[in-house]
C-alpha cells in the first residue's frame, strides 16, 4: 500500500498496487488503485476506500431522508431531498387512503411541507421513490431543521452513536438525522430545540477537530443553564 491509512488524499493519488479491491471513491487502472475524491484513505479487509469530505447526496435504498414537498401530482407528491434527482412519494406509499383524489392529496401534504421518509427504490434509470409507511415516518409538523453537508452526517451520529446519544440526552430533544444532510430536532421546548440546532452546526464546522464531543457537550450545558427544562 502506498497511502497511509487515514491520510488525506486527492483525486488521482495512488493508494495501492496489487491484490486489493477498489472500494468507494477509488478506481482501478491496471494493477493500481487511485483515489477519485478528496478524503481520507481507509481499508476494510482488503477493500480500499476513501471517506469523502464533501459531495452531493446520492440516495441509497433504505436511507432515511427529510424532504420538502415541491409539487402535487396525480397520484403523489414530488419531494426535494437535496439530491441531484427529485424524489417521488406516491400516495400508495403513505398511510392515506389509496383512492384519494388530487384534492385530498393537497390536504395531506401541501407544497412547502416536510416529510420524514425512507428511500425504497433508486437506480441509474429512474428518480428515487419514497415511502412513509415505516414507524415514525410521515409529515413533520413541529421542531426545527438543520441542513449540513451529507458527508458530515456520520460525525453527527458518532462512533457507535456516541455523539447523537449525547446530543439527545443533553438537550432533551429527539434528533433525527436524514442521510441527505437534513436533521430534525423535535423537543417539548423551542429553546432546547434551538440549542440542539446550534450544536449540530457546531459539529459541522468543527468536524475536523479533536475532543469535539466534549466541547459540544460543554457548549450545550452552558446554554441550557437558566433555560426551562422540558
Amino acid at each position: 500500500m502506498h497511502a497511509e491509512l487515514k491520510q488525506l488524499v486527492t483525486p488521482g493519488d495512488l493508494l495501492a498496487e496489487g491484490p486489493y479491491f477498489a472500494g468507494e471513491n477509488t478506481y482501478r487502472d491496471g494493477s493500481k488503485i487511485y483515489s477519485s475524491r478528496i478524503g481520507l484513505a481507509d481499508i476494510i479487509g482488503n477493500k480500499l476506500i476513501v471517506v469523502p469530505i464533501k459531495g452531493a447526496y446520492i440516495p441509497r435504498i433504505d436511507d432515511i431522508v427529510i424532504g420538502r414537498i415541491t409539487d402535487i401530482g396525480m397520484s403523489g407528491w414530488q419531494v426535494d431531498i437535496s439530491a441531484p434527482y427529485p424524489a417521488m412519494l406516491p400516495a400508495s406509499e403513505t398511510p392515506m387512503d389509496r383512492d384519494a383524489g388530487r384534492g385530498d392529496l393537497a390536504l395531506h401534504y401541501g407544497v412547502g411541507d416536510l416529510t420524514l421518509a425512507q428511500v425504497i427504490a433508486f437506480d441509474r434509470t429512474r428518480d428515487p421513490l419514497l415511502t412513509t409507511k415505516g414507524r415514525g415516518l410521515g409529515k413533520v409538523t413541529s421542531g426545527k431543521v438543520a441542513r449540513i453537508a451529507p458527508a458530515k452526517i456520520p460525525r453527527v451520529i458518532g462512533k457507535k452513536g456516541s455523539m447523537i446519544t449525547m446530543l439527545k440526552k443533553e438537550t432533551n430533544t429527539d434528533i433525527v438525522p436524514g442521510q441527505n444532510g437534513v436533521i430534525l430536532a423535535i423537543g417539548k421546548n423551542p429553546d432546547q430545540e434551538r440549542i440542539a440546532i446550534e450544536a449540530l452546526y457546531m459539529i459541522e464546522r468543527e468536524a475536523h477537530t479533536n475532543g469535539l464531543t466534549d466541547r459540544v457537550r460543554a457548549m450545550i450545558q452552558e446554554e441550557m443553564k437558566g433555560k426551562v427544562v422540558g
Partner: protein
Amino acid sequence: MLDNQNTIRLIDDNGLRVDGRRLDELRPIKIEVGILDKADGSAYLEHGRNKILAAVYGPREAHPKHIALSDRAVVRCRYHMAPFSTDERKSPAPSRREHELSKVIRESLEPAIMSEYFPRSTIDIFIEVLQADAGTRCAGITAAALALADAGIPMRELVSACAAGKIDGKVVLDLSDVEDKKGDADLPVALMPKSNVVTLLQMDGSLTEEEFVQAMEISTGACRKIYEMQREALRQKYHIVKEQEKEEPSEVSA
C-alpha cells in the same frame, strides 16, 4: 525595452523578459480553495496579474430536463470575463471568443470527470475572469479542476494547464499580456499529469516543428509543477481533517 529602431524588444541582452523573468520561468501563482459559500466547490487563482474565480455546482438536477443524458452527467462550462477585467472595457455580453473558450475548457476538464456516476444530472462549471493578463484559459482550467475536486465530484485526477509561446524568435514559458500581443506564437496546453495525456491544445502564430516540440516540453513541464501547487492548495484547505479523524474516527457510512 526599446532597441535602436524604437520597436519593443521582449527579451533583453541578459536573456530577461519585460517583467524580469527568464525564458522558462512561470509567473507567480497563488491559490485558494473553497472561497465561496454558495457554490458546491470553488477556487480562486492568481497567475501573474490574472485573477480567476472558478465555481462548480453539481451533480444537480438537470434543467431543462430534456438535456439530461441517460448514462452520465451532462457537463456544462461557461468561461466569462468581467467588463473591468481587460485594459479596455469589455461588453458583458458573451463574445465569440468566450464561446470558443467555454467549449475547449469543457473538453479539457470533462475527460477527468467520472460523469458516468451521475446519469441524468448536470455538473456546471463557471469560470469568471476578474482580471486578465494572458493565459486566462489555462488559469481557468487549473482553477476549475480544483473547484471540481472541492465540490467532491469524482475525478480520475486533476487537470492543470499552462501556455508556452515564442517571442523574439525564442521559445518561452507562460506569456504575459504584452508578450501575447507582440509575440510570434501562443500555445496553451492542459495536461492530466498522472496519465500524461493532453486534454487541451491550441496554437496560433508561427512555429517550426522543433520549436513546437520544445514548446510542448516546457508547457507540460510547467503543468506538472502547477499540479503540485494544486495538490498543496487542497491539502492546505483540508489538512486539519486528517488530524481529527486520527483521534476520533467517525462511523463510516455504508
